[in-house]
């Protein structure tokens, strides 16, 4: 297969776009497209102060690289989850990338902030029923927003790609989780109640494109998966969607784009107005919540700390 732009040997073929490109042209194409999505979905501007969530994985490091190449002002945020070897290695990757590219990286550690690592916390809460992903996701979202608010950032960006987006969309559609559907999209607007604007500049790239970008740019990322990712529903959904994509190239992209169009034309408007009207401030942390008193984050971590004390007392007795 040949590059459409120069006729050299292609490095990647994107069947959904009927587009094959060589390494050089692919490395130009990704930032061009990213810039196009940033403008199309009005994600942020040249002067915006951007907080970029960095996990050490391919998507977040590729995004950091692209935004830097495009000249945006970014600060990375690495959240230490305390998942043994995996967390140590991914933090190393994030730090190495920041140092080599002369970028600012803020590191926060969940255990330092809240008194327990993610795996410890998941054992001490009902949330997620012993599986850490639910507490982990909740904690990451909360900390991103907290750091963004405290640091006065205009927007939080994450490296979510189209496969991530479509897997979530698929799951929410199967459950007709209209509240979640109403909130899904390339941009989550800020709310008066203190939720910082969120944007996903890679939301239209397939996962294999972001992976190809990191490989071609020679970016070192953590290749191993988090040990808890195994068997995750999101991975199961991604595999199912890839099976369909195989037969109908472009299906994942059109699923996402037609969802965005449907939303644009007013589907879920009721739900999103309803959700906004229900937002209150958490009495402990001040972040917005749909719960009447304390947000899910504060409730979960208060519970973890309480149980921790009781188990400790039990041990010493």
């Amino acid at each position, binding site marked *: 297969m040949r590059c459409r732009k120069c006729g050299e040997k292609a490095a990647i073929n994107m069947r959904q776009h009927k587009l094959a490109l060589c390494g050089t042209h692919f490395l130009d194409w990704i930032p061009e497209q990213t810039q196009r999505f940033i403008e199309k979905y009005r994600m942020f501007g040249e002067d915006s102060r951007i907080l970029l969530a960095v996990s050490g994985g*391919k998507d977040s490091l590729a995004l950091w690289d692209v935004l830097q190449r495009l000249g945006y002002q970014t600060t990375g945020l690495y959240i230490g989850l305390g998942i043994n070897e995996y967390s140590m290695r991914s933090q190393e990757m994030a730090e190495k990338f920041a140092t080599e590219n002369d970028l600012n990286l803020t590191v926060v550690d969940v255990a330092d902030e809240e008194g327990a690592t993610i795996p410890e916390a998941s054992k001490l809460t009902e949330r997620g029923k012993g599986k850490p992903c639910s507490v982990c996701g909740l904690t990451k979202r909360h900390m991103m927003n907290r750091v963004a608010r405290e640091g006065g950032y205009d927007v939080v960006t994450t490296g*979510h790609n189209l496969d991530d987006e479509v897997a979530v969309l698929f799951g929410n559609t199967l459950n007709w989780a209209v509240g979640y559907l109403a909130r899904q999209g390339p941009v989550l607007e800020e709310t008066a109640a203190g939720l910082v604007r969120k944007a996903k500049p890679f939301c239209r790239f397939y996962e294999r494109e972001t992976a190809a970008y990191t490989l071609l740019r020679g970016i070192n990322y953590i290749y191993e998966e988090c040990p808890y990712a195994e068997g995750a529903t999101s991975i199961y959904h991604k595999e199912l969607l890839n099976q369909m994509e195989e037969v109908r190239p472009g299906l994942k992209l059109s699923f996402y784009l037609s969802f965005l169009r449907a939303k644009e034309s007013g589907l879920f408007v009721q739900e999103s107005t309803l959700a906004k009207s229900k937002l209150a401030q958490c009495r402990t942390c001040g972040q917005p919540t749909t719960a009447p008193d304390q947000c899910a984050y504060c409730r979960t971590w208060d519970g973890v700390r309480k149980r921790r004390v009781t188990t400790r007392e039990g041990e010493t007795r």
Partner: protein
Amino acid sequence: MAVRLTLRDKEFTVNPGTTIRQALKLVGIQPESVIPTRDGELITDDEILKDGDHIRLIAVISGGSL
């Protein structure tokens, strides 16, 4: 000699003469879920496998709650 395909710690042996895409399907790997490389170079999956080729497949799916 044959063709070796490796993906993480798994290894598959296939016959030369087919495309990478066909070989992937044969061993039950979704072409969408990997990037084929040879000698560190990215290649497209319409390439015909040659005797002695070693194709390293890079897994692209990652997961967990986001």
